[in-house]
């Protein structure tokens, strides 16, 4: 299995290398290299999953590691770590990535940098697979950064567009901020425990070598990395902009790779989070889920709607993890990967057809693009949490977890309530997108006429993905395999105490029931509202928009986060940078130059020492005693005798100095 894992890792890297160096000269510009490598990886991943499933053991684990960097005192290893989560994620990533590769063959077919595109896809997949497979913080940080790089390359793929270039840069730098925090967290962990390896770190924490506030800090810092990658508040701003990349890339980023990385990482390192850290995670998730949902309500660009929906869903996942719903969070991650890939590819198909991302240019596409429509609808229902689609199960689990948490800790009930609201909004804005895109009459006749169903290479992936959006596929086994690690604080200390007081089984059961009903209800409500507004037109969106102008504006402008950051962080940085540069030029250099100038001035003084000072002295003396008579008035300067006088004076002075 380790061999398989290594091959899975190396295949995309190999594809990348081939593509970047000789891709241009290969037949079909080598799209088959990358795609083939990805499919191969998928087939290699299958046996791993099968093995995991066949053992059907929550503690299933295969690891192997090699010495990598040996400092003598410290030995950093590189290792592969396969457990159930890895096995599942491998399948998810390789499958979705393969499908997106396939889809891209159609979508990108006439791009001038076709080979480069596939190269980037490969490196992206490589980074993500590496992130899943490595066995320690050091490794995960490396691939973490590489994911950032890949996203930079792909988001900025159409770099001639300034907006794309900007978005790429923004994505990278925003991520870097999170990464630095994560790095700081790793610093704490490593310097306290002296190891990077997950297992050893977890063991160390279990032994209490790292605990208390420092552990909480480490946890929150590491989570900050996930905040960046998984676009959590307040570092979510890059994700919507990342829509500037080609749509399949968006699908890849939003579904299987980049944003999933954060959630995956939190799941992977779940045991290091203390109860306080988890609470932070939960709240960040809540805020993100709600805020993104509200923004999504008013977006006009189909991809932006999807983008904010992603942010919102990621918030859900974090809520799940933060409230102790380890399984729920990761479950949602997996289901979301499929239906979000489906949605993005579907929207890509639409965009491919109408050459526009604005929903105002669409409408009525249902007839022209039936496959796209139906698959997209499935995706929508899944994300909205309509049973029996996959999203329902996972989201329900999250809500249950949040409710359970709220019931145990009533002060934190707000998490559940807000999350529930966000879930309702999901139904609303997703259906809105469907109605605006596929329903009603075409708003742009010309674009509508040109529109056509996408080629098979694009629709097949849609169909495959739609299959996975059906929830029953995931039933049961996943929950069994992804059991909350025993070492996690909820499993061990914090909540158990609470649970002991509150009667744990009861709470869980009640919570589950309430959550299920409320989630169905709220999803239904959202869908209903959406239908009322956009299909039956019973309620005027414009009117309500006008009525709620301030809120609408706030949502439309994404809570002014970009502006806020622009005005504070970026402007501040640039300001300091300018100041530093000026400081460098004026003050430090100026100081040095001033010293030089003073020296020179002084030297000028001395340069005249022979001519001027003595002369001047004589002249001064002459002026003072000028009125003593004509004879003395004739005093003028004469050279040698000036010198002699000076020497004589020096003798006198030296004598006086020495005497005292």
């Amino acid at each position: 299995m380790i061999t398989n894992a290594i091959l899975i890792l190396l295949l995309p890297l190999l594809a990348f290398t081939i593509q970047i160096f000789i891709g241009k000269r290969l037949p079909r510009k080598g799209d088959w290299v990358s795609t083939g490598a990805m499919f191969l990886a998928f087939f290699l991943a299958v046996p791993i999953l099968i093995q995991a499933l066949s053992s059907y053991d929550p503690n299933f684990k295969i690891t192997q590691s090699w010495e990598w960097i040996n400092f003598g005192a410290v030995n950093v290893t590189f290792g592969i770590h396969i457990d159930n989560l890895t096995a599942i994620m491998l399948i998810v990533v390789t499958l979705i990535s393969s499908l997106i590769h396939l889809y891209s063959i159609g979508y990108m077919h006439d791009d001038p940098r076709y080979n480069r595109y596939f190269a980037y896809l490969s490196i992206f997949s490589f980074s993500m697979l590496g992130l899943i497979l490595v066995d320690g913080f050091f490794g995960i940080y490396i691939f973490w950064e590489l994911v950032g790089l890949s996203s930079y390359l792909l988001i900025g793929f159409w770099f001639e567009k300034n907006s794309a270039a900007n978005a790429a840069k923004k994505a990278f730098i925003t991520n870097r901020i999170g990464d630095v925090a994560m790095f700081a967290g790793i610093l704490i962990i490593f310097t306290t425990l002296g190891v990077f390896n997950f297992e050893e770190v977890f063991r160390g924490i279990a032994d209490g070598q790292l605990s208390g506030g420092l552990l909480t800090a480490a946890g929150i810092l590491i989570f900050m990395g996930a905040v960046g990658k998984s676009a959590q508040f307040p570092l979510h701003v890059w994700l919507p902009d990342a829509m500037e990349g080609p749509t399949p890339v968006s699908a890849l980023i939003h579904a299987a790779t980049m944003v999933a990385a954060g959630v995956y990482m939190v799941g992977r390192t779940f045991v290091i989070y203390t109860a306080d850290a988890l609470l932070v995670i939960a709240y960040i998730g809540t805020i993100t889920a709600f805020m993104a949902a509200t923004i999504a309500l008013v977006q006009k660009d189909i991809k932006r709607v999807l983008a904010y929906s992603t942010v919102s869903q990621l918030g859900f996942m974090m809520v799940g993890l933060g409230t102790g719903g380890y399984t729920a969070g990761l479950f949602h991650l997996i289901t979301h990967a499929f239906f979000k890939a489906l949605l993005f590819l579907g929207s890509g198909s639409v965009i491919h057809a109408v050459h526009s991302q604005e929903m105002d240019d669409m409408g009525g596409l249902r007839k022209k693009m039936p496959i796209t429509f139906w698959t997209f609808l499935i995706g929508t229902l899944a994300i909205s949490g309509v049973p029996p689609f996959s999203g329902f199960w996972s989201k329900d689990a999250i809500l249950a977890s949040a409710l359970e948490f709220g019931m145990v800790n009533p002060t934190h009930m707000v998490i559940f309530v807000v999350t529930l609201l966000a879930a309702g909004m999901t139904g609303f804005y997703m259906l809105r997108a469907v109605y605006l895109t596929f329903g009603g009459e075409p708003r742009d006749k010309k674009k509508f006429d040109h529109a056509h169903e996408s080629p098979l290479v694009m629709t097949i992936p849609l169909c495959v993905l739609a299959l996975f959006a059906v929830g029953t596929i995931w039933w049961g086994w996943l929950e069994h395999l992804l059991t909350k690690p025993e070492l996690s604080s909820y499993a061990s200390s914090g909540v158990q105490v609470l649970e002991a007081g509150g009667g744990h089984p009861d709470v869980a059961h009640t919570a589950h029931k309430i959550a299920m009903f409320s989630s169905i209800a709220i999803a239904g409500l959202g869908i209903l509202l959406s239908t009322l507004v956009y299909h039956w037109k019973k309620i005027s969106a414009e009117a309500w928009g006008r009525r709620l102008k301030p809120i609408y504006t706030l949502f439309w402008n994404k809570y002014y986060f970009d502006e806020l950051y622009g005005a504070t962080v970026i402007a501040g940085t640039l300001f300091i940078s300018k100041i530093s540069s000026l400081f460098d030029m004026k003050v430090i250099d100026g100081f040095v130059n001033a010293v030089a100038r003073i020296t020179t001035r002084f030297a000028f003084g001395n340069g005249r020492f022979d001519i001027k000072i003595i002369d001047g002295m004589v002249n001064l003396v002459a002026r003072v005693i000028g009125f003593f008579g004509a004879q003395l008035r004739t005093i003028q300067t004469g050279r040698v005798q000036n010198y002699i006088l000076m020497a004589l004076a020096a003798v006198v002075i030296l004598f006086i100095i020495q005497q005292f």
Partner: protein
Amino acid sequence: MNPSEIIQNNINSLSYFLPELILTGMIVVLIIADLLLKKENSAWTSLLALGGLVIAFVAVLNQYDLGSRSIFNDMLAVDPFALYFKLLFLTSAAFVVLLSIGSVELAGRPVGEYFTLMTALTLGLFLMASATNLITIFISIEFVSVTSFILATYLKTRRRSSEAGLKYTIYGAFSSGLMLYGISILYGLTGTLDIYEIGTKLAASSANSLALLISIILMLAGFGYKLAAVPFHFWAPDVYEGAPTPITAFFSVGPKAAGFALLIRFFNVAFATEATNGEWAAIAGVNWSQLLAVVAAATMTLGNLVAIVQKNVKRLLAYSSIAHAGYALMGVVLLSDQGVYATLFYLVVYYLMNIGAFLVVIVVQDLVGSESIDDYKGLIWRAPLPAIAMGVFLFSLTGLPPTAGFIGKFYLFAALIKGGPGFYWLAVVAIINSVISLYYYARILKAMYFDQQDEKEPASLAVSPYYVVLLIALVVPTIFLGVYWAPLADLANYSVEFLRAL
């Protein structure tokens, strides 16, 4: 001693006086040769002078076998210390003779007197280096002064040379007067003219420090004028600028070194008592080493600061040579073998690089007809060899490895550091000065290497092979001594042993 012994001593001493006798004989030969030779053949006198110097050089080398002794009834000393300086004088004089042969400045002037006086000046320097009696000290200084006055005025039809000569004369005479007065007081305090006896007497008696102090300061005026040390340096820039360049080169080396020889011998013999391990203690009452330290600091600082604003290379080098006197003085103030040794070493190094720099000035003067820094622009493209040589000399003057100048500075700093924290401040001053000095040396470098030449200038200037040979002859040791200087260091080390030997 009875008269016959004294006479016998004088007769015996003659064999130890061979180099000086050779020079004296050469003076006579040159005078006669100048009379006999026709004008167009007068250039032969230069070769005669050179030959005399070479023979004297051999004679001096032979004296190394003789050990240390006093000759002519304690009037002069023949010891490694004096011999070291004598070798320095002879080689520098030989170089200056060589420079003079090619110099355009001196072309068409009578050479007989010139070389005669050069030889006489060298003789005077010899005496300065070996004088151990106040009379011989005074006479040798006068000897050097009088011949220098004439040589500075040698281009008598040129106003600058004439003026330089006059200033030198008046200032020199004045300084001699001061020194003489100081000597008279010293004589009055001790009742003897022999510096060793003076040392013994001063050490034995608790002489009045005030009288001793004024005597020392007045004598310092006389020595300081030879060293061109601040505040007795005033004559130097003017004279250096006005005098013929080869003579300037010699002034900046020969009399200066002789001044150091005298200063070191006289002060350490007369005003200090030897403690242990080659360390001296200044006589009670007058802390002249502190006095000299102040002079050293002032000298290097003023020399360097004023050099910064100079536009004439010759004048700039004049100020730089003032500064270097300050550096070399650092070794003297330490009252230790180590310090003297460093100074001796430095003087040789300084002589090489300074004569070298002046040689380049002469070459450029001949090629371009100017001493202004502006006319050095783009020299590297027009005349690479002089430019490169100047680079080497200037780097050496700055004190950068791998040139001899660095080793010289290194020894001085080493001596200072070894001397203990008392003179660390001087080391700091010297550091700052080293950095300042780079600034003006670099101005010449910048002009030569970095600045674009004026377009009207000819593309390339032909340097005569004669100068090429001379330049190489100076560049090579300047670099070589920066890489391997052990023989010179050993020689200098050996030469310090002058006090214990007599």
